[in-house]
């Protein structure tokens, strides 16, 4: 069996529409055409770019932690910035991953009642759900900005970057979440499907 034949993994959405928690089997009821309008292509680009940056961050994370081990055992000099940098990176990897998860419908929820509704009402409820996600994203960006400005003059020990940089990740995630959720709402209204940019 080739690796390519192995499908579903953790955040895989070819097989599970995890945002609603319903397995999309072969007999799935709503197969909609993919969104290809300009805004959707813009979001696809953002999503791909975010994921590329997140991948770089993830590899950076691993290198940081490995470097710490090497420093401790080989040079008998533990690099004190490594842990601080790793903690900074993980926030950005998470922020970008969260946002792409919103676009790719990768977050886990339940759909017990919604699935009982008629197609028309179901559509409306899904729009409301994405509306709530927009709200959360907006609050995240706003609060993130508040903390960023408040903590910008406070410099982190060992790394020399502002503590506010931690919260800047929230602003990034919040803005992307809002953009991607709006894309979903537009797609629902146009009876289209948002297709993940990179799987």
């Amino acid at each position, binding site marked *: 069996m080739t690796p390519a034949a192995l*499908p*579903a993994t953790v955040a895989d959405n070819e097989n*599970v529409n995890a945002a609603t928690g319903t397995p999309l*089997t072969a007999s799935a009821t709503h197969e909609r055409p993919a969104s290809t309008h300009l805004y959707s292509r813009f979001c696809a680009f953002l999503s791909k770019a975010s994921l590329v940056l997140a991948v770089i961050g993830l590899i950076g994370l691993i290198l940081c932690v490995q470097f710490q081990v090497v420093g401790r055992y080989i040079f008998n000099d533990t690099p004190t910035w490594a842990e601080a940098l790793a903690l900074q990176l*993980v926030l950005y990897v998470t922020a970008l*991953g969260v946002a792409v998860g919103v676009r790719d419908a990768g977050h886990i929820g339940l759909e017990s009642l919604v699935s009982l509704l008629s197609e028309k009402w179901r559509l409306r409820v899904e729009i409301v759900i994405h509306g709530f996600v927009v709200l959360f994203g907006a609050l*995240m960006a706003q609060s993130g900005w508040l*903390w960023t400005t408040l903590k910008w003059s406070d410099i982190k020990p060992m790394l020399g970057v502002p503590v506010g940089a931690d919260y800047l990740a*929230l602003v990034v995630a919040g803005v992307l979440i809002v953009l991607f959720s709006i894309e979903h709402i537009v797609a629902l209204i146009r009876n289209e499907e948002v297709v993940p940019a990179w799987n």
Partner: protein
Amino acid sequence: MELTVLCISFAALLVLGVPVAFSIGLASVATVVYSGMPVAIVFQKMVGGMQVFSFLAIPFFVFAGELMLYGGIADRIVRFANSLVGHVRGGLGMSNVVGCTLFGGVAGSALADVSAMGSVMIPLMKKEGYDADYAVNVTTHAALVGVLMPTSHNLIIFTLATTGIASVSVFSLILAGIIPALLLTACNLGAAYYVARKRGYPTRGGFPGWAEVLKAFLGSLPGLLIVVIILAGILSGIFTATESAATAVFWAVLVTALVYKTLSWKDFLKACAKACKATGVVLLLIGISSAFGYFMALYEVPEKTGELMKSVSDNPLVIFFMINLLLFVLGTFLDMAATILVCTPIFLPIAVQFGMDPVQFGIVMLINCALGLNTPPVGVTQFVGCAIGEISVGQVMKSILPFYSALGLCLALVTYVPAFSLWLPSLFK
């Protein structure tokens, strides 16, 4: 009153179908607004919750799991398990249980386990004439063992959730999980065999002989070594848990790219991308659960729950039963990480007060949460299993009872017999 706002808004959002993490987040926001505090506090707690050094192990374990999936380690483990128990009645089911346990040792989560093993085993079982519901149940339940096996990020989440209540080391928790994991495997084997007999599944071929077993074992050995690296690294003090997880990623790349030569550059990038998305999903839940936990502390939910439970009974056996029951109920609709982070501060103090060791409590909690991964309405391993098996959650319920019973039996044993979890760590004291 604030608590009512918190609970009702959370339940309403969840029922509406808002993803769990966002439901928790918005419920917290609603509570903050109601009590006149700044909204920014929710997001401060969220960032604080994500930014814990030990949580770095999570992206690493997820990443290593993805690499093993793409790099063919899962296939080799299946081959080994099959050579070992494939000839027993319901043989593929048995191989599945053994395979999932082994892969559970190397993969970080039950979800990684079910997607890796399930995508190999479920189609295979269906082709050999097993019913889809049986194939899915065997896989999803066997995958739960991964929650307790050493490279589980849930163990790490639990140790962090105990901060401020008890000091539980990752070290002792890892050791404590091993025997319950084996116990759970035995229970799963029993359930798989029972259903196979009842449905009259065929036996298939004979025992291939030890030479064949050895060959298959050697084939899977480089992959299985990951668990050895992690265990030995932590137990000997060469690495912290986080460093071992990062080393596991290195090893996974090494094995799949250089030893097996099955990992292409494209697959590597895909594994990276999936790991990032999964990290986002898991860490968001962890972060937002810490915000939720902040309100629980602020409104003294742990104390109030404790008082309530003590007013019902002061018999430890009854208290432990109630804890299990409540954890089960919460686990049906909460995600695992969220359950651990929200419930540990509530139930751990009570359990300790009634004489349960925090380490034992951790294992009880993890088994309970694992059970929740396979219960509707929110059961992520079940979703993935069903998706791979192309059946509905309703269909899978047909043969689930023996498996639930097996899990329940294991849970009861670990809850009421401390030795199952505490004996192994006691040897290393």
